[in-house]
């Protein structure tokens, strides 16, 4: 018996050692990732008669797996690689299968003090230096179109308003026992664009973005933050003798105070930018010179109040952004209407095969319309979708006040949000008269199941987004543009984690606006007059199965189209059946 017990003990110890060594081996390499199945069938609405050339219906889909491999060769270093395997429906025996390296990064810590990352970085600073603003008409988005938004954001690497860049980053911090509580630093150098051949014997220069941040927690009430960023080209990396320089400097001073119920913050944010083009290696031995030099400032004062039980908060502020404030990292748009992108879905329509104007459905459903590259110039925008802040809070030539508020009933029966702004231009464009902008966005969600004390969710949402642009003056230069988007949606949980969803969205725009055309140095070259009178609409019905957090299956049917009045476009109507299975591993 004793002998048997000893043998049993030895076996257990041996198994334990083996088990332990296996566990350690696995700790050095681990996996996670993301998988998606996507199928869409698009069709021309049966009421459309003037398009016999386009296919009546078309379907496409794919399965994809993004496998994330994390390798820890030593405790303080991790190598991360994301490999994509994508198989389009209809491809067999390997045809139509793509395997791509999607991300590669090395993270580590030196002496437990200095962190570093090399490779694909996701960077963000302040809203005026480096910030990837949300696309237009995406505020107050509901669950119905979340699968679409998830694809746009995931495919374009839009994460927490960060820009995905490739380079090196390091950060570290210090703690102090007097004068300053904490001092943290962050620095990075990235290359948003490499040198490339632009004609037979011409090569563009490398475009680099470098920057740094310093955050000083002075005490429990005050924080000081400084950001610096510089977008610049390196002329020697190509053979173009014109290169851009765009440094931006920013400072934020924040003051906090709180008690058991409230939290109050005052924030002063200010900074300035410079931009010019350097002309180097000139002919006949001429010395380097600069051109198109501009500098601009910005200032924002904001007071915020938060109730600690999360039932009420608001911010009220004043913002001034100079007409010549230029910050490539903050003013680059997700949607570039000047890039010549055409819609993936039915790009041409009618028997005249006209280019189909982009609708709000395309903005929601077409991830290929979106941009991942920083631009040193202000990009083209469509005023019907965002005329008040086409470049986010960093939109130049704006001066005004804003109010943002949120209210939630204690029992969550009602949830309301409000975002308003009253702004004007600092100087006019093409006329001394200035545009005046009004922005009113509001949403209201009624959680009826809380009111009726039901176990399953039943909710109703209403949201409205309105933009008004006016410019007085004579009949030639005056502007009056109104846009309105209204959304109604219902979510009803009919079985555990199964929801029936219905959504109606309508977007109207009417009026006129002058589109600004700029040259390569950002100078205004022309104002193109545009008249608008059009209506977008989407009606959607679907079923969502929230299997787990970050795992869902969704099937929905969309009826969508556009109607034009007095415009050189024909109306259109399409339908779509969509199925998405999304799994975060």
């Amino acid at each position, binding site marked *: 018996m004793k002998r048997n017990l000893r043998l049993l003990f030895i076996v257990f110890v041996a198994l334990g050692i083996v088990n332990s060594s296996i566990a350690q081996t696995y700790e050095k390499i681990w996996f996670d990732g993301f998988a998606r199945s996507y199928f869409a069938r698009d069709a021309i609405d049966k009421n459309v008669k003037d398009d016999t050339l386009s296919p009546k219906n078309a379907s496409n889909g794919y399965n994809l797996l993004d496998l994330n491999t994390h390798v820890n060769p030593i405790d303080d270093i991790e190598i991360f690689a994301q490999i994509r395997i994508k198989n389009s429906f209809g491809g067999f025996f390997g045809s139509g299968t793509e395997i791509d390296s999607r991300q590669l990064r090395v993270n580590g810590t030196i002496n437990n003090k200095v962190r570093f990352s090399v490779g694909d970085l996701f960077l963000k600073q302040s809203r005026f230096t480096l910030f990837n603003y949300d696309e237009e008409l995406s505020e107050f988005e509901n669950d119905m179109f979340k699968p679409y938004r998830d694809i746009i954001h995931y495919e374009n690497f839009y994460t927490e308003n960060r820009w995905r860049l490739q380079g090196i980053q390091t950060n570290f911090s210090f703690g102090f026992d007097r004068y300053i509580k904490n001092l943290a630093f962050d620095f990075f150098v990235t290359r948003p664009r490499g040198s490339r051949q632009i004609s037979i014997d011409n090569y563009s220069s490398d475009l680099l973005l470098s920057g740094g941040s310093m955050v000083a927690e002075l005490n429990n009430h005050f924080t000081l933050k400084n950001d610096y960023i510089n977008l610049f080209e390196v002329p020697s990396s190509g053979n173009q003798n014109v290169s851009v320089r765009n440094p931006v400097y920013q400072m934020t001073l924040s003051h906090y105070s709180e008690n058991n119920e409230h939290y109050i913050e005052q924030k*002063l944010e200010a900074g300035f930018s410079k931009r010019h083009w350097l002309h180097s290696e000139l002919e006949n031995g001429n010395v380097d010179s600069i051109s198109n030099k501009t500098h601009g400032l910005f200032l924002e*004062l904001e007071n915020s109040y938060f109730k600690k039980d999360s039932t009420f908060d608001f911010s009220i502020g*004043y913002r001034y952004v*100079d*007409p010549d404030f230029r910050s490539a990292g903050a003013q680059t748009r997700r949607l570039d209407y000047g890039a010549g992108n055409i819609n993936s879905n039915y790009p041409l329509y009618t028997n005249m095969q006209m280019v189909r104007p982009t609708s709000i459905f395309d903005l929601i459903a077409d991830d290929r319309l979106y941009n991942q590259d920083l631009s040193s110039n202000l990009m083209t925008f469509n005023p019907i979708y965002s005329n008040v802040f086409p470049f986010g809070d960093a939109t130049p030539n704006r001066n005004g006040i804003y109010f943002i508020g949120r209210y939630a009933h204690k029992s969550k029966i009602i949830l309301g949000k409000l975002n308003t702004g009253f702004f004007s231009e600092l*100087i*006019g*464009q093409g006329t*001394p008269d200035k545009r005046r902008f009004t922005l009113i966005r509001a949403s209201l969600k009624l959680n009826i199941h809380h009111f009726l004390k039901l176990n399953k969710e039943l909710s109703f949402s209403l949201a409205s987004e309105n933009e008004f642009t006016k410019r007085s003056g004579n009949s030639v230069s005056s502007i009056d543009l109104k846009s309105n988007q209204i959304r109604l949606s219902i979510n009803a949980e009919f079985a555990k984690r199964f929801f029936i969803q219905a959504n109606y969205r309508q977007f109207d725009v009417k009026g006129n606006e002058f589109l600004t055309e700029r040259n390569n140095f950002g100078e205004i070259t022309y*104002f193109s007059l545009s008249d608008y009178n059009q209506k977008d609409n989407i009606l959607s019905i679907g079923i969502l199965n929230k299997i787990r957090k970050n795992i869902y299956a969704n099937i929905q049917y969309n009826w969508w189209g556009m109607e034009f009045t007095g415009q050189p476009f024909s109306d259109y109507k399409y339908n779509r059946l969509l199925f998405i299975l999304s799994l975060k591993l």
Partner: protein
Amino acid sequence: MNMKLYNFFLIGLVFFFFTCSENEFEGMPIENLYGEFKILQPLKINNGNPNFSKNEIVRFHCEFSIPVEYKITIEGMSTKAKREINGFSNLLDSNLITWDGSPLKLPFFIDEFCAIELTFKDQIDTIRDTLKILSAKMYEDGIWYEDFEDGLPEGALVAYNKDGGELTFATANDVPLLGNSYFKMGGKVNWDWNIGKIDFELDFKNVNESADNFFLNIGILSDLEDFHSGQFINILISEETQIPFNGILTNDASDIFESDMEVYKMKVPVDWNGWAIKSFRYSDFEAVSPNNPAIDFNMNPKDIRAIRISCQACPSSPGNPICPENFGKIVRTDIDHIMFTKNTDIFKSK
């Protein structure tokens, strides 16, 4: 707290006043772009009787209330020769908007009355005027030109297939492009590609333009009567530096167009009726022997030593029936007014 807030706002206020822009507005005035169109100053022509042979030019001046797309059309009343000047502006600046007497294409203007019309896109207004050309432009201002007015130039070499029929490799006076003479170049050689050629020795040592900015212009006459569909002109330009232009006197042609020399070519199919002026950028010429490693191809107008203009056509006889449908047809590729110009072609359209 209030004191701190006060300080914040004070800083902001100072910032605000410091940054106020002094500009009145950005960009061009919208009223100028989209306002009512008015002619502020009528069309003025500085020279109603230009003598283009003395390099006189005609200047135009006019002012409008808004920038518009404008078009000045000048049409010869006798020849129907035409020149158009287009632009987008609210000003016809007489320093910039000029006419040197050249058309946009053939025919040329002659000594004649011309109708001038100024029109505007999307506007009903039209301004009309006339002028009288006292003497037409002579086109003798190129770097080198040959108009055959004094017969063949000294040193020119003419060679042709003497076994052919109805060969015309000589100057003629019946239908010149300009002046009184041209070089008639054609005939019938059913069994071979080469009909004949003319070589000119050139000296461009003083030319500093690059191959991109150097143009050859040549007037070519053909007709479609009994048309030979395989006829063409082959232009060769030699930058050979060692061999003399005409070192071997026993042949009729120059000796510097051989395949082991730095020679460039341009093939011009001739398939139209009447005179046409063709212009070629020198950098568009191709090397004759691009794969010969012994030749250093370094195209440079300064090094041009000779030009050959060959009349050729695809053979059609039963012994060499490449294009038999042309059997017995007479090739016609007459030339006149060969001119090298710098920076632009003869019509200033390139």
